[in-house]
């Protein structure tokens, strides 16, 4: 049973988040520029998202979810190798 202090530490530990944007995009046959156009963001933003350099805001995550027809938790998930 973790202590309160232990739980607090676990909750505060930053998790590395991975995503499946590149796989889903290529499955649809879209280029980064195509996805950027549909999301109304720059191609650099799509690249930063796919390479994990940038975690999107909630509104952008919801737009991605709608566009790729997947729930957000299928798009973004904790990196199992980070533990």
């Amino acid at each position, binding site marked *: 049973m973790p202590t309160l202090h232990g739980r607090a530490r676990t909750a505060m530990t930053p998790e590395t988040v991975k995503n499946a944007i590149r796989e889903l995009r290529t499955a649809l046959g879209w280029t980064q520029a195509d996805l*950027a*156009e549909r999301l*109304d*963001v*720059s191609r*650099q*933003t799509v690249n930063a998202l796919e*390479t994990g350099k940038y975690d*999107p805001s909630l509104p952008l995550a919801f737009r991605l979810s709608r566009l790729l027809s997947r729930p957000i938790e299928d798009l973004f998930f904790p990196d199992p190798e980070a533990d």
Partner: protein
Amino acid sequence: MGVLMPTPSRERRVNRTMRKFLAATLLITAIALVVRTLKARFPNDFLNGMELGLLAALPLGMGLLLFRAYRQMDEYGQRVQERASGVAFLLSMVATMVCTAVQSLAGVQLPLWTIYIFGMLVYGLSVLWQKRAG
């Protein structure tokens, strides 16, 4: 009925604003240089005032267009600009403090533009670094 034009992509909108920004900066700088040259040949109050006005308009115009470009950027672009500006501001403040100390202790007079060049250099490098490192 007007013809419906497709909305230009965000990148194109930002690039267009940046092109306008560069053109305006070059135009105002060119006019300021012409006015300065004229003032050197025919010194008078009108050209003095015009030069002062242009020098005041240059940073204001640059600031306005940069703000417009920032507003048109997406969230990632805005974050990059915010971080780069923050780092450049902080290091420029440190550089200003160092320059002030050097001036008062060593008596060396450093021109103000060195701070400007330093700040812009840090800003540019910070943007590049963030785009590489994320």
